[in-house]
Structure formats: structure tokens, C-alpha cells
């Protein structure tokens, strides 16, 4: 199971940039189609909000590859860093 968790980490790392690319591409295309202020704000909000989340999933994938999720802490005593 731990091996699978680590391998899946690669998927999460790839998912981040893919999501950013798809989001940015759709935002540009939609704003070009309808260049009004509502569309611009709407897509600006989506991009601003989802980019940090996409970075979050990259970090999550990185932790998974490093084996951070092989064992989850059972108490605060295990939070040592």
C-alpha cells in the first residue's frame, strides 16, 4: 500500500501544472470570446484562487513520494519538526 501511495504521488504532482494550464487556457479563450468586465473578474477569481490550490496538490504529491503519508501521526508527540 505504501508503494502505491508513493507512486500515486507522481500523478498528483502532474495534476497541479495540468490544472493550471487548462485553467489559464480556458480563461484566456473565454475572456477573448466575451471581453466584458464580468467575464474578466470571474475568470481572474478562478485563476487567483485555484493556482495556490494547484501548488498545494503538487506539494501533496511531493510529500506522498517522500513517504510522508506512509504513517500518519497518532498524537502531537509525533509532530516534531
Amino acid at each position: 500500500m505504501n508503494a502505491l501511495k508513493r507512486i500515486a504521488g507522481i500523478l498528483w504532482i502532474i495534476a497541479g501544472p495540468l490544472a493550471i494550464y487548462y485553467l489559464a487556457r480556458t480563461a484566456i479563450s473565454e475572456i477573448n470570446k466575451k471581453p466584458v468586465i464580468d467575464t474578466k473578474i470571474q475568470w481572474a477569481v478562478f485563476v487567483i484562487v485555484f493556482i495556490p490550490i494547484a501548488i498545494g496538490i503538487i506539494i501533496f504529491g511531493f510529500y506522498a513520494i517522500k513517504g510522508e503519508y506512509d504513517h500518519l501521526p497518532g498524537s502531537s508527540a509525533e509532530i516534531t519538526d
Partner: protein
Amino acid sequence: MKFGSCFLYLKSMNQPANEVQSIRKIITASSVGTLIEWYDFYIFGSLATVIASQFFPKTNPTAALLSTLATFAAGFIVRPFGALVFGRLGDLIGRKYTFLLTLIIMGSSTFAIGLVPGYQTIGFAAPIIVLILRLLQGLALGGEYGGAATYVAEHAPPNRRGFFTSWIQTTATLGLFLSLGIILITRHSLDADRVKSIAKFNEWGWRIPFLVSIFLVIVSVYIRLRMKESPLYAKLKTEGKTSANPLKESFMRRSNLKMVLLALFGATMGQGVVWYTGQFYAQSFIENICKVDFEQSRTILIWAILFATPFFVVFGNWSDKIGRKWIMLTGMLLAVITYRPLFGKLFSIADEKNKTEVLDKKQINTAIKPIVSSENSLRTIGTKHLYDDGTLVTETKTDTVYADAGKTTLKPDIKVSKLLPGKNYWLMVAIVFVMILYVTMVYGPIAAFLVELFPTKIRYTSMSLPYHIGNGIFGGLTPFIALLLTTIYTGDKLIGLYYSMIVAGLCFLIGVLYLRNTIDRDVND
């Protein structure tokens, strides 16, 4: 399980009478306040159209811009910030005063929205004030939930944490229920004539649900003031072990950050989309895609909520016995598998193509009203079609009849409203009930799950952020993204569901792989 019977159950477990009474008070005080906060937050959304006409006239581009900001910023950007601001405060000064503060901010902002004069009276100040108040609402909501859930969980006995916190979990749905109910009652109580009553509601009556909030908040503040600090937090404070920098400890420490990320990607993002799809998008789909009558679309949701709400407690209670993980993940999986057929059924119930029109019952009414200070007139053609199953479809076409005979309206305004007969109506209630049942599965155990994931000294901060990103951003954006998808890919009426299905599916996979199903009995660390 009913609220009263749960305490009978506790008594039967030989819990001391004063302990039972104390837990009852804690749950009531926390839940009522949280319910009011959700009510306050939802009335703005439920009255968005009326508010827009009062404060954000479409004819003025700056006001329209502020409207968009109010919709997006408050619900989606500000909530996680509220989680950070008040979460930090809750870990620094305590749960009790922090979630008292969020309640006061939310209540006074809501009340103030009800008092702000319209755009016609004070011009640009109106939309700006409303935007600021809406941002304050979002901030307060971001701080409330984590406090209430933490407070109840830190009072609960270890083997009953899921059950006790599930009462907090009912509040979001009940807040929506209360907001819809008060709006519908107010809409019909302002005049004996229904049409006049609705007109008065749109003119000034919409303020009533906002103003009513202040009485609810005063009662709730009074109750919360009498509460004591969470025993676990009070113990930490006495021992001088509270965190000096909760934000740093929550998000800069690898060992805690990894749990925050796991909570977000393995639980709350799926929970958020299932929550918003089952309630908000379902109602919006019934009203805007199925074209069901305004009130029927809301009462369908009200009935479904009423029948499904007890299941928050059922699944919360069950999670104390079998663990949180699989209940939440089953809810997500069922959502992914069944959303398309369920929404497809909703659409086919209202679709005239599946019905036969009773042609001799067709009625056409035309009304022409002169337009003031113009030679033109406004023509309204109302056509009523009755179908064999009892569905009544009203099509209202409005256009301008120009004095110049050669000129015609390029695109007449056409509105369709379907009134469903009893059988179809209750079938829709049953389908929405199933979707809210999924909500209760993913949402009922999640407070206990989040509480158990983080240590006491940074619990408020650590659990609030993933919750509000999952619920506020992933969930809150569901109706908008779903609508956007239907405008981009116009061929499929159910295309909007793919957003929820993909997010819930991804969350399910991550949850299956990385979450553990053990119940952390000791959260006193």
C-alpha cells in the same frame, strides 16, 4: 435520531444527569449560533436578484462590477481568510470569545444590510456599503464553523464525538432551510393579494429577513456568553502550552502541513462539491434548466432538506462505531456514480417531450400596455399548456409593439415556468432527498474527522482552512462552474455535473489511498 431521544440514549448509558444537561446546553448554544450564521449568509444568496435590483443596477457598469465582486469575493476568497484570522485568534485567546465575535460580526453585518438605503437614494455609497458588509459576512463565516465544531468536540466524550459534532453539521443545511422558509413566508405575508405581496416584497419586504436576524443573534449571543471555555483549551492555557504562532505551526511545519493538505484533498474538497451539488445546484438546475416554477423549485428543496436532515446525526453517530473514512468516501462514490442518472431523471420529469398536450385546454391571453412617454406599447402574451399528467406550462412572451409598423422587437423576452402535478413534484423531492442523503454521509462525520486530525493548540486554525477551501471554494464555485460548462459545451444539459464528479472522484481516490479509518479517542493533545 431526534434531539430529545439522543439525550435519553445518553441517560441510558448511565451518563450523570448534570453531564447530560451540560452537553445539551453546549450543543444548543453552539448549534443555534452556527445555524444563524448560515442563515445570515444564505439570505444574501437567496435574495441575490432582489438585492441586485436595489443596490447594483445593471445599467451602471461600476455597480454591476461591485455586484460580481460581492458574489465571488465574499463567498470564495474571503471565507478562507476568515478561517485564518479567526482560527489564529481561537488558538491564541480561546474558542469561546472567538466564535462569539464571529457571531456578532455576522449578525450586525446582516442587520446593517437590511438598513442600507438603495442605490436610488444614496447612489454609489449603497453598493460599496453592501459589498463591505458582505465581505464581513464571509470573514465571520470563515471563523465560525471551526470554532463551533472544535468547541463541541472538545466537550464530547471520546466515543461519542461523531454523534455530538453531527448536530453542528445539521446547521448549514438548516440555515439554508430557515432562509428559504422565512423568505417564502415573508413574500406571501405582506398583502392579501399574492401579486401585490410579491411586489411589496421586491420593493421593501426583502429587508425583513435581514432585520429578523438581529433578534436571533441577540438570543444566541446571550446563550454563548453564559458558556465556559472548552475544557481542553482551558487546560492548555493553564499549563501555558498554547501556541504562540498558530499560523506558523499549522502551515510551516511539514508534519502538520501534510495533514492540512490531506484533509483538503482527501476529504473536504469532495465534501464541498457534494454539499453544493446536492442542494444549491440541484435547486438551480430544477429552476433554470428544468424551468420549474420559482416556488416549487424551492419547496422541493425544503421538503428534501426536512426529510434528510436527521441523517446527519445518524451518520455522525454511526461514524463513532465504524470510523469516519468509509462513510464519507461512500457518499462521494455514490455521488460520482449516480449524479448523471439522478439529474437526468429530474430533467425528464419536467420535459414536455415526454408528455402529451391536452390541446383543448390551451389558453392564450394577450395584454398590451402603453409605455409612458412613448408611442410604443408593451405586449405580453401568456400561453398556458396543460399536459396529460397534469403539468401546467406557462410561457410568457414580452415584446414591444412599435408605433412604426415596420419595426419589430429583435429578441422578445420569453419566460417558461412549469407547475408540476403532485406525483412528479414528490418524485423530484425524492430525488433531491437522495442527493442530500449523500450530503449527510460526507458532511455528518467530517467535523469529528477534522478535529481528530489536529492537536488542540492549533486545531482551530488547522481545521478551519481546509474546511473553508473545500466547502467555500471547491463547493461554493460549483453552481458557477457548472453553469459555465453548460455555456461552453452547449450540447449536453448535464455537462455541468462533470466538475462535481471529477472533484469528488479525485477526492475519493486520495481518501481511499491516504486516509486512515481509525478513530482518535484522545484529542487531548
